[in-house]
């Protein structure tokens, strides 16, 4: 009985505190968290420490020529590009947008995908229409779709939210709205199998309302494919953003996002490998850190693992 007594006097443990305790023990997750926060600090606080204009081109021709394509040095920690612009400043400025676009667009896509997937999997009546909608969006050619979206909404959004916020909102919604389908199909497949499992049947038999069913029983069990979709989604959102600005649909051409820096760098890869190294490294680090955070989070959320 002493065991039971000890359990009784122990302070009631909150669910999220448990999750955090488990998360803390996951080395990869902590490392990922640290790297991710460092990256955020790098792109937000960095520009105040290293106050160089990322789009500054030296107007003096002779000086401009002298400062082109410099390797990393004390003056330019990451070197310069083909117009003598400071790469460190460009990577920092680009990171703000790229990380934001990556996270927000990914969240939109995952949210849309999970919602559609869960609803289609759980409710037979919604399954047909929602999945045919998914087929439709999957079949649409991406490029004309994006062009049309931008063409229809650009001016309205720019007027309502100002040019910069307008562009940002447009880009993340365009990417989000065109990349949720895979997540939806995967989640639906999982839900179809889950809903025949004993614990769901049990929950249903005691009259659990649908919203609680979804939140308590279904969602925690589809978390792992959703996490995979999320981590893979960040990188593709960052790259898609650059594709958009290459189509002239995104940010102004002299605005350095990571995707654009990488794309421009590929051209110079043979002569100046550092040009692809920095943006490639930045994107990879972001994705890797998010992946490890996701891994840790999933383990921490899983009561079976947490118990061990």
């Amino acid at each position, binding site marked *: 009985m002493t065991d039971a007594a000890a359990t009784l006097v122990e302070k009631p443990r909150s669910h999220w505190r448990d999750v955090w305790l488990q998360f803390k023990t996951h080395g990869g997750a902590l490392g990922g968290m640290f790297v991710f926060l460092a990256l955020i600090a790098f792109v937000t606080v960095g520009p105040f420490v290293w106050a160089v204009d990322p789009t500054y081109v030296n107007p003096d021709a002779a000086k401009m020529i002298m400062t082109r394509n410099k390797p990393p040095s004390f003056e330019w920690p990451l070197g310069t590009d083909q117009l003598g612009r400071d790469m460190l400043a460009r990577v920092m400025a680009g990171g703000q947008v790229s990380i934001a676009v990556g996270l927000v667009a990914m969240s939109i896509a995952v949210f849309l995908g999970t919602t559609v997937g869960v609803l289609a999997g759980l409710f037979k009546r919604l399954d047909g229409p929602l999945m045919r909608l998914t087929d439709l969006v999957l*079949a649409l050619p991406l490029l*004309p779709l994006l062009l049309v979206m931008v063409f229809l909404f650009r001016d309205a959004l720019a007027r309502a939210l100002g040019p910069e916020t307008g562009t940002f909102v447009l880009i993340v919604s365009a990417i989000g709205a065109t990349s949720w389908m*895979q997540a939806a199909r995967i989640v639906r497949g999982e839900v179809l199998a889950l809903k025949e499992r004993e614990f769901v049947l049990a929950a249903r038999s005691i009259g659990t309302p649908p919203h609680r069913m979804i939140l308590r029983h279904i969602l925690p069990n589809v978390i792992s494919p959703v996490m995979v979709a999320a981590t893979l989604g960040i990188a593709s959102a960052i790259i898609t953003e650059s594709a958009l600005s290459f189509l002239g649909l995104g940010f102004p051409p002299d605005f350095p996002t990571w995707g654009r820096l*990488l794309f421009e760098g590929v051209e110079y890869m043979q002569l100046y490998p550092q040009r692809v190294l920095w943006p490639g490294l930045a994107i990879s680090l972001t994705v890797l850190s998010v992946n490890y955070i996701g891994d840790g989070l999933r383990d921490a959320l899983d009561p*079976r*693992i947490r118990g061990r």
Partner: protein
Amino acid sequence: MLTFVIRRLLLAIPTLLLISLVIFLLVDLAPGSPMSEIPRTVPPEVRERMMQAMGANEPVVVRYLLWLRQFFLIEPAYVIDGWLGSNLAGDAQRVLSWQSRTPVFDIIGQRLPQTMMVIGTAYVLGILIALPIGIYSAYRQYSWFDQLGTFVAMVGSSVPTFFTGVLLIIVFSVNLGWFPSIYDTTLQVTDWASFKKQVMQMALPVTVLALHNATEISRYMRSSMLENLGQDYVRTARAKGMGERVVVLKHVLRNSLIPVVTVIALGIPTIFGGAIIAEQVFKVNGLGTALIGAINASDLPTVQTLTFIFAVLIVFFNLVADILYGILDPRIRYD
């Protein structure tokens, strides 16, 4: 199950018609004109005439109905004529590309071989690499193998094919000179030497694409396996004294395949859609470059036809995936 399949197939017809209409309107609404690749020195009146001759000036409804007629009546008639030597199609005009005035199905015929060869091989190879990696990574979670796999997969998903493709060309074509950087679509495999040549020219594009595909599938495989390895039935199976191999490869794997089947089923139509960037980097000139070229030139008949076939494949393979769910997990029912 049979009634389900029949019902879905019947339902697919209105769905596909709706999809075709949406695609048509979308491409028509998109900015750009079939005249965009005509030099600017060509005067506006001439451009107008050219548009007229193509039929690009007709109202959108007329063009859509014409396309439907050409796609569903005339093209099949041509195929039957080809088989039986009959003359059902007569002089009726086939679906003609605005860009090249060539029947779109002829273009597809010219491009299908290299697309299947390169993109198809890469896809199959990608799956073959991904499944064992995913399974073993999950089975030995957080081992050095898993960590390495995670690292490679994440870096692989962060660097796009336009980067890896050019990197491989610089290393293996320019510096080492091992593989060609340009795919020769006229090569006929007739003997050992030409077969070797074919393998050489496929090496780089297939590597790039297979790695790209493997990244994604292996991640889904791993996560799904992890999920299932923790389930009670695994403990039960082990407790019953089943061999580890049977537990993992028969019970866990089968239950873990649902998301993987979804991803693969979504991926197969993209083989037909081609891989735009990789095709461009290696000059494979498959269906992906045909589609993007047609989109850039606002070549509506080509875009419409290619996208529609793509849509048919998507609908079909998603149906296949649904059937496979039922086989993998007999509890899933649709009736």
